Structures are given as C-alpha cells and as structure tokens.
C-alpha cells in the first residue's frame, strides 16, 4: 500500500530523451509556457501576497493573526467554490481549456486552507496540545479540521500518477469535494463570533447553485431557461439556510430576517446577491452563443 502510494506520488523518471519537464504551474501538459496558466497561478498567489503585505505594513489591525487567518480562510472557501465553478464555466463558455486550470485552483484552495490552519496555530502560540484539545472540543474546529484532512487527501491524489492508478475510483474519491465544501461553509457559519454571516450565506447560496447545476439532467445544463430557473432556486436556498441558522441558533426573529430579503431598498441581502450572481450565468451563456 505504502509503496503504491509512493510510486503514484513520485512516478519513476522517464528514460532520457523523453524526459518530462518539471510540471511548473505555468507550463501546460506539453511543457510549454502557458499565459493562461501563468496568469492563474499569479492570481492564486495574489490574495496571500496581499495579506502578507498588509501584515508587513501593520495594516491588519491590533489582532493581526486573527484577522489574517480569517482572511486566508475566506480565500480557501472562495477558491474551493471557484474550483467547483470551473466545470460549469468551461461548459457554458465553450472554453474547454478552462478545465485544465481546475487542479491548480483546487490545490490553491488546499494551500490557503493549510495556511489558515498554520496561522490558527500561530495565533494560539503553537501550543500543540492545547490546539489538539481545541480541535477535539470545539465543533466548528473539528469539522474544519476534518474537511482539511479530506482536502489534503484529494490534493495528494491530484497527480497524474494517482489519476491513472485509481482509474474510475479517482472520480468517486474526488466527489468528496462536495461534502468538504459543505463542511467548509458550515465551519464558516460557526466561526463568526457574534453574528455577521453575510459572506457565509453568500457562499452557501453559490455552493447550492453549483450543486443544483450538477443535478440538472446533462442535456439541460446549457439550457438558458434551466439556468434562469437556477437563480431563484439558489437565492431561495441561501435564504432558507440563513433562516434555519437564525431560527435554530439564536432567539432572533428569523422570519423578519427572511422577510428582509425582500426589502432591497436598504441593502441587498446575501441570498439576493447569490441570486444575482446566478442570474449572470445565463446572461453570459447567451452572450457566448451570440458571439458564435
């Protein structure tokens, strides 16, 4: 077992002459420089660089570790959602090369999630016993940690070698991304100190949209009407998640919060935003069709 794992992770060198160039993230599969991949790689590093710059410039406030680790965790969730969005966008934009970016974005999400854990440990002064205790005791940490472990397993098995070695089981294994994303968003909900769930609700709405799209029969996935119908479904789903959260976890009048989704005069609630983002999808898909 161990040998198989190692063989898959570190495939034997090819005979000389056919040597494969090192798979730097800016190279395509043939080993050529790819602007698309290079740009994606740079964009993936940008949020981390931004947070590092803020930290260096004393811009993270008086609790730099806590604020920094939140920001990095936020990017882990965002990139995880983006990973899941690659397939629908490659399909709807009729741009199959997009799909070649999925692994890199997914590994980016894993990188930010690992950094998030490392920064949590730093914020707890690397008291490892205490940290292990907290992860075991606090439910939101437990589920975050479980999600991270599963994500690391997916990252480990993301190499070509593992794809070959696992064959059809690879796809089944990597369906774990869905429960991981759900746990990640749940963790996002639970960690907010007192309230302020704005982006967590938005993330729930977007994740629901991504899941709904995959539940569509294959023939409908590019159908503008079906895509149009997904927007209110995602918005309603996010609103219901938010309602359930407040109704079960707090004494706040959850019905009022649900109703506030309809009052767009003051602010657009996150569920409404999820719906608007989802509405952009059929618009973009239509535009793409017109361009052809």
């Amino acid at each position, binding site marked *: 077992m161990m040998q198989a794992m190692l063989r898959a992770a570190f495939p034997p060198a090819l005979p000389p002459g056919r040597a494969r160039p090192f798979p730097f993230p800016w190279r395509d599969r043939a080993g050529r420089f790819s602007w698309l991949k290079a740009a994606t790689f740079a964009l993936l590093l940008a949020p981390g660089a931004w947070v590092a710059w803020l930290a260096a410039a004393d811009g993270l*406030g*008086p*609790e*730099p*570790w*806590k604020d920094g680790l939140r920001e990095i965790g936020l990017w882990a969730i965002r990139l995880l959602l983006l990973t899941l969005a690659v397939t629908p966008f490659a399909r709807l934009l009729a741009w199959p090369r997009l799909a070649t970016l999925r692994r890199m974005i997914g590994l980016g999400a894993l990188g930010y999630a690992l950094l998030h854990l490392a920064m949590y440990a730093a*914020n*707890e*002064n690397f008291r490892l016993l*205490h940290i292990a205790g*907290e992860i075991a*005791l*606090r*439910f*939101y940490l437990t589920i975050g940690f479980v999600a991270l472990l599963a994500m690391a397993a997916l990252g480990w098995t993301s190499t070509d070698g593992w794809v070959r070695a696992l064959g059809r089981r690879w796809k089944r294994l990597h369906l774990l991304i869905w429960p991981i994303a759900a746990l990640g968003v749940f963790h996002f909900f*639970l*960690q907010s*100190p*007192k*309230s*302020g769930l*704005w982006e967590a609700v938005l993330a729930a709405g977007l994740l629901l949209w991504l899941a709904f799209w995959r539940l569509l029969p294959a023939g409908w996935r590019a159908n503008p009407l079906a895509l149009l119908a997904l927007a209110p479904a995602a918005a309603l789903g996010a609103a219901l998640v938010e309602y359930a959260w*407040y109704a079960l*976890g*707090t*004494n*706040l*009048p*959850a019905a*009022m*919060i649900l109703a*506030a989704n309809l009052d767009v005069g*003051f*602010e657009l609630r996150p569920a409404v935003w999820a719906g608007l983002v989802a509405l952009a999808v059929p618009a973009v898909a239509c535009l793409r069709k017109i361009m052809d």
Partner: protein
Amino acid sequence: MFIRKRRGWEIPESRVTPEHLVFGRRAALGGLALGGAMALANPAPAAEEAFNPGLRNMRYRPGRDVTAERNATTYNNYYEFGTDKGIYRAAERLPLRPWTVQVDGLVDRPREYAIDDLLQAMPIEERVYRLRCVEAWSMVVPWSGFPLKALLDAVGPQSGAKYVRFETAALRGVMPGLRQSWYPWPYVEGCTLEEAANDLSFMVVGAYGKKLLPQNGAPLRVHQPWKYGFKAGKSLVRITLTAERPKSFWEAIQPQEYGFWANINPEVSHPRWSQASERVLGTGERVPTQLFNGYGEFVADLYAGLQQERLWA
C-alpha cells in the same frame, strides 16, 4: 500565622514614582512653553481644552502597559454602526451635544441630566482598567469618569430597587446598524444594584486624557472591568433602577452564549471557544485570563451565596 494579603492599592515604597519624575518642573515648563507656542499657531478646539481627565486613581493598577490609543480607538464592537470592528469612521456621525441622560425608575430624585451638567456634578477621576472582550482579546485603557456609586447617591435608590438597566442611544438617522430591524434595539445592559454600587463600577466620559470618542461609547458609558466587554453599554441615554432583572441585548439574542452576569472566568469556556487566555491588543502577546479579570479582591464577595446563578457567561 499572620498572613497579610496586600490590597490592590497597597504597593511597596520601592514602586513609588521618583519625585523628580512627578514634579519634572523644568521639563513641564519647557513643554508648556512649546505647547503654548503650538496652541497659538494652531488653536485647539475649545472643547478639547475644557476636558478635565481627572487625577489618576492609583488603587487600580493594570499590571500591563496601556494599549496604544490608536488600537483602542480603531478596534471596536459597536453594532449600531456595523458588525465589523472598523466602525470608528461611521461612528463619527454620532452627535454628542446636546445629549441628555435620564436617570429614573425606583429612585427618590429622578432626573434628566444634560451631559455637561452631569460632568460638572460628578467627581471626575482617571482609572486605568483592563478590558476583556468575550471574543478573547483585551486592552488596557486610561479611562476618565466617575464611580457609578456617585450617580446612585445623587438620585437616591429606593428600597425596592434591585437592578440597574443601562440603555444605549438608538438614533435611526446616524446608526446604520439599526436598519437590521431584527436585532432587539436599543442595546440594553444591566447589573445588580450591589454590583453597580461597587467602587469598580465606573461611568466613563473620557479616555487617554481626552473626551471619549463615539466608537468608545461617548459621551457616557458604563464599564465594569470584571465582566466581559459586552456588558459595558455605550452612549447611554437612560439609566433605570428596577425591581426586575433587565434582559440584555446579547442575552436576548443568544442566551446560551451570553448571559446576564457575564463575569470573567478562564475556566468556563464560551460554547464555541476557550476563555483560558487572551490576546493583548497591539502586543502580539497571549496571556492567561484571570478570574474576574484579576479584580476578584474587589468584587468576589458580591457573589457570595449566588453559586446557583450562571455567573460566568
């Protein structure tokens, strides 16, 4: 055996500040001359000059460095102005004058104070307190203000009064957070009359030798440093003595996480995180949290016989 426990204000002679530092006459005069010249060049607003921060009360020693003013004034929870910590700019819109504070309920002499009359009537002093937030961060601030006891004495609590209720301003025009209508505005906090009469209970009107800023709860807030920070209601407009225990803002929202007493105890975790230690703002340090935030010698006897109450959250 004779065991002598030192009270908080009893400090060894060796820690007394040398006289030349206290009465640094030449340096002070030099500073005065410089300050005077600067004042001529750039006259400060009259309100700045009028504020009297009071003499520092040396009974309560923080045992830590004072938090940088920038941190204490830019990292604030004030949900009326927004749910993140960077509300200080939004809070600038809070109109601080005219401001009246109604003191009513079960008192002999209910009264509506104009804030400046209240400042005139009360004995202003400075106290350096530790503030421990329920979110496991803390700061040390030199507050100016007066003991809540002085205000209670002025209005005369009646025998039926058991609790004090503090009500924060709810100004729709300037507080965008109130548009989140599902929160139980106004922000209400409370404590028992005994707690309010304890010398540590402080009504804050200034910080860092200046008038209090809106984000810190101007023009008047309560601060009981042995309780989590959310108990320290800001921008008070009404103080009511009642017979019934008031239901506080966070208790109304999430009673399983935030209770009425909310005394600080490192051994009682928040349902979602440990309270055993705290980050001291701006220092990068994490220090162990103390029972009653280290003020046990002044307040622990308030809770004798109250063990059946949920004192710690």
